[in-house]
């Protein structure tokens, strides 16, 4: 008996004793673990299931739909393999859609980033009212694209719009914004830049404020002028911010929908990839299979841009 009772006394110090699992303690640990797993599932499962059902499943469904010749609302669909893709990549409409998407993306991203940087440089001067101006310039970014689109439809009206009125004071005729497809594209680009430049400005401003003060002071001591400081110090220091902004802006503009839908419902001259995916299925054509093909291509593009972002960011991290 005594030998049995002395056994625990001779066991090693408490720290290692924790690792010696008697059957009961393992059971208790297992129970706690199981309890934690259940808690995790109870808390996280609803969100995860929703994400699986409404974000992951559609990606697979789209790929399946894209192999069908299927009219929206029809009970049956004919499997056609890659026909939709062949049609998409050989159609002359696609060349036009690619051109419009490219022009829209480059112009809106370039325009909002350039204006955003200029505004950020001014905001960074800490003048009176800079805080208010920052919020004011950002505000269009949070407003409904539908409401914003309606305002600008009114302002661009060639007869009674305020832009036509301003042009009239200079004896200029108003361009036919809504009838000329290439001018329609210019118009939606202007509105999109107006709505998004504040976002770019706020992000550029954050980047500017992260430039170390001593670096700027050192440049000033060395006699660098304003332009020189901007080109040799501020711009390079801003490059990670600019890159983040570039990628998010490209992703955002590839998803632009509301303004295009409201200002140019028929999409003449303004049919981007995303708008084509909508028009094909819900714009009266009811071509569900073809729309799914366009969506799948669009998703491929988004993956590509995100992959580029990750690769470049990774390299930057290693570089540091």
């Amino acid at each position, binding site marked *: 008996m005594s030998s049995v009772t002395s056994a625990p006394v001779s066991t090693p110090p408490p720290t290692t004793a924790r690792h010696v699992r008697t059957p009961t303690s393992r059971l208790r640990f297992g129970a706690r673990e199981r309890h*934690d*797993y259940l808690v*995790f599932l109870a*808390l*996280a499962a609803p*969100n*995860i299931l*929703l*994400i699986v*059902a*409404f*974000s*992951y*499943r*559609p990606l697979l469904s*789209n790929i399946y739909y894209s192999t069908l010749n299927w009219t929206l609302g029809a009970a049956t669909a004919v499997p056609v393999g890659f026909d939709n893709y062949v049609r998409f990549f050989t159609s002359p409409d696609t060349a036009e859609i690619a051109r419009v998407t490219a022009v829209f993306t480059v112009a809106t991203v370039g325009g909002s980033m350039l204006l955003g940087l200029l*505004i950020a440089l*001014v905001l960074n*001067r800490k003048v009176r009212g800079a805080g*208010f*101006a920052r*919020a*004011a*310039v950002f*505000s*269009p970014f*949070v407003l*409904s*694209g*539908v*409401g*914003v689109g*309606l*305002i*600008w439809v*009114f*302002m661009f009206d060639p007869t*009674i719009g*305020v832009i036509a*009125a301003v042009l009239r004071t200079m004896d200029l005729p108003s361009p036919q914004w809504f009838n000329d497809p290439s001018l329609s594209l210019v118009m939606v680009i202007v509105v999109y830049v*107006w709505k998004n430049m*504040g*976002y770019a400005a706020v992000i550029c401003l*954050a980047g500017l404020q*992260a430039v170390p003060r001593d670096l700027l002071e050192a440049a000033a001591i060395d006699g660098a002028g304003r332009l020189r400081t901007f080109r040799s110090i501020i711009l390079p220091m801003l490059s990670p*911010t600019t890159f983040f902004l570039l990628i998010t802006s490209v992703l955002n503009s*590839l998803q632009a*929908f*509301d303004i295009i839908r*409201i200002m140019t*419902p028929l999409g003449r001259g303004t049919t981007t990839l*995303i708008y084509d*995916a*909508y028009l094909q*299925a819900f714009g009266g054509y009811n071509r569900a299979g073809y729309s*799914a093909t366009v969506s*799948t291509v*669009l*998703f491929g593009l*988004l993956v590509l841009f995100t992959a580029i972002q990750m690769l470049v960011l990774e390299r930057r991290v290693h570089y540091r």
Partner: protein
Amino acid sequence: MTMSATGPEQDTRTHPLAPRNLVAAAVGSFIPLVLAVAVVALPLVWMLLSSFKTPGEVLTRDLSVLPHSLAPDNYLQAAREVPFVRLFVNSAIVTVIGAGIKVLLAIFTAYALVFVRFPAKKLIFAAILVTLMVPPQVSLLPNYMLVSGLGGADTYWGIILPGLGTGFGTFLLRQHFMTLPISILEAAEIDGAGHWRRLTRIVIPISGPSIVTVALVSIVFEWNDYLWPLVIVTDPSMMTLPVGLTLLANTESDALAYGVMMAGSVAVIVPVLIVFASLQRYVIAGLTQGAVKD
């Protein structure tokens, strides 16, 4: 190049109100700032003013800036053409319920990911993050087939459900929860507090600003959401405000309707503008998360 050159320069620097500095500040900072704010504000002001103008005042080549009266004729006219009040109520219902559930889901998921033991949590988090990259537009057709197949067309739940899963809110709150002092939670655990108690009595109360940020961003998104409700709702009495405004623009495409359209724009834009004006710090912080790392 010596004392005489640095003298006056120091002089202007030490006197911020010296004429040279005033001119420089005006040209370099103040004027561009006013210009930028004007470019942003003028269309909104124009919307507000025009929403009170009669068709006669709108439909003219001699534009006057101010409306003759502040009678809400256009708002009443808009209410006659589409169920305006109903649209507003629909938008409010969808926004409050949608954003409310979204915030709860984000809090629960983020807490589980940070504080509850589970295998492969990093992988799960990564899988949730990927959804930030999947725009709702890409999922449009499959979600339409699923939800309309379940009878969700022209219902509140049909509008709300597909957007509930939240990658953004989970991401934002997880980042915040990871900065909380773990010692408080461990102390609570030793005192016998379970997960639910730790979540509701400790984590939520000390995470106010982050939760407000997620809530505001969700509210703005739900209120402005357009494409999904446009597709899933066809009954005007179930439409949200942005969808209903499309109806207004489609039915009254002639120039006479501009005043009414501006009244509609005011209804969809001004509530968000008020929320933004009062809590802009949170909204901007939430929407620009992740921009500047380090």
